[in-house]
């Protein structure tokens, strides 16, 4: 039987299926997960004519090399990504935010993300994936979600359930911008830090460490001194929380974070800055800027409006 499918020639560094995330499981220890950069996830689906909440393939740094076998299909890649499409002996340079049509035997080589971490591949149709608790999002630490909760591996197959018959060309004019100032709301343990520590947090530069993944982003910089016990009684975490352990180096909780933790929370990244935060590569310098809750809410509404606008242009 000639089922439409992709063969994975090279899986890439960390390629996983993700969607909008998994709700209502924090209380048993299961994080939200989902696409790290929500805006680029939604745009990818819209370009290929999918329901916006369909699962997509998320990759980090080096992406996958895929061979497509089946009927014509549209694909789109979002983010800041270098990729090529091989059609026999012809090689086409890929461009983000526009659709390409793949035919039987074509190869899609997602070479790498540029000055960013995550990219998204959406295909016009539906991947054949198993949902777990209403989501396909993969958490490789607890092996939950699509693909048995694992990242993609070389030589495996990705089957397609359905293909969108509409192969119209779609394009969006959009360039990802980078941020250097991360806006945060003071955390619930802000007063656990010395005056000097608080000042350092909002004035000095921090560098993103290599020890950064979907669970958390570690930062290095001047030591943020703690004046109360560094171990608080473990309590709930959400994505964006900035914890400071005894070594004085902040850790930002990202989408696959442990659900509870025991380090003081100095701040929380505002929702409007999350998509941009996760795209910062190790070695990038950041500064934290304080905002009030009401501004954070306005900034989120503006960011969301911008996302909706981009989607409606497609």
């Amino acid at each position, binding site marked *: 039987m000639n089922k439409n499918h992709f063969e994975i020639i090279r899986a890439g560094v960390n390629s996983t299926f993700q969607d909008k995330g998994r*709700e*209502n*499981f*924090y*209380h*048993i*220890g*299961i994080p*939200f997960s989902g696409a790290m950069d929500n805006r680029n996830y939604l745009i990818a689906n819209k370009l290929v004519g999918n329901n916006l909440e369909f699962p997509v393939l998320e990759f980090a740094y080096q992406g996958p090399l895929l061979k497509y076998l089946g009927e014509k299909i549209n694909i789109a890649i979002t983010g800041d990504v270098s990729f090529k499409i091989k059609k026999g002996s012809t090689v086409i340079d890929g461009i983000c935010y526009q659709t390409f049509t793949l035919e039987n035997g074509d190869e899609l080589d997602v070479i790498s993300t540029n000055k960013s971490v995550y990219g998204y591949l959406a295909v016009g149709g539906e991947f054949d994936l198993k949902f*777990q*608790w209403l989501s396909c999002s993969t958490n490789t*630490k*607890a*092996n*939950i979600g699509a693909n048995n*909760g694992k990242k993609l591996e070389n030589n495996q197959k990705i089957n397609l359930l359905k293909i969108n018959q509409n192969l119209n060309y779609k394009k969006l004019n959009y360039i990802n911008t980078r941020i250097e100032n991360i806006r945060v*709301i003071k*955390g*619930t343990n802000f007063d656990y830090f010395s005056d000097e520590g608080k000042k350092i947090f909002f004035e000095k530069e921090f560098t993103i460490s290599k020890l950064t993944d979907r669970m958390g982003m570690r930062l290095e910089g001047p030591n943020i001194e703690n004046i109360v016990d560094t171990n608080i*009684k*473990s*309590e*709930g*975490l*959400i994505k*964006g*929380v900035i914890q400071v352990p005894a070594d004085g180096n902040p850790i930002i909780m990202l989408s696959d974070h*442990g*659900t*509870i*933790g025991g380090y003081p*929370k100095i701040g*929380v*990244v*505002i*929702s409007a800055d999350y998509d941009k935060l996760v795209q910062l590569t190790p070695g990038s310098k950041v500064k934290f800027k304080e905002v009030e*809750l009401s501004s*954070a*809410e306005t900034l*989120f509404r503006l960011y*969301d409006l911008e996302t909706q606008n981009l989607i409606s242009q497609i």
Partner: protein
Amino acid sequence: MIKNISNLGDAALYCDFGNEVNKEINTKVIRYFKSIKKDNIEGINNLTPSYNKLIVSFDLNKTSYKEIKKKVENLSININEDLLNKKIEIPVCVEEEFSLDIKRLEKKLKINSEKIYENFFDKNFFCYMTGFIAGMPFLGDLDVNLRAKRLETPRVKVPKGSIGITEQFANIYTFESPGGWNIIGNTPLNIFNSFKEVDPNLINPGDLVLFKRITKNQYQNYNE
């Protein structure tokens, strides 16, 4: 009953029930947790009860801090209502291959292993919270004679099913994971079943747990 509600970032409520860790405060947390869960409040997408805090996360596309705060403040919580907790028995084998830290504990606590187990088995434990890794229960309170600190250097891999103790708590490693608790045995029972559509975790906050000692033979032939 909540001492203070503040915001944790722009998309969560931080409900503070106090700083102490005891069953009384934790029971309040669990009552609120169950009540909010039952009410299915529009926009709330996660609840994280812990010893003395409850985090209520919400979808900023659907609601806001002010709205959710008001709804939580206006909840009528029946403080006398029974928690309707389950009673769960956990079979545990303490053969040498499973009780990785028993020798260390004998030295630290200055009591022999039989005495340690006597003070551990067939006692009522209360589940304060679940989490950190999927399904891991934090159970208290441990007999005062058994309280020890964590390992100074945590293990890179604690075997699945390990029973750990530290300070006033016991836990169960639902997966192989890094960890620093003192391991005193292992259960053949599957505490977290990710294939279950509903209630994948066996032990929930507020449940009562009793550890039952089993032999190696019973462990090997254990059938759920």
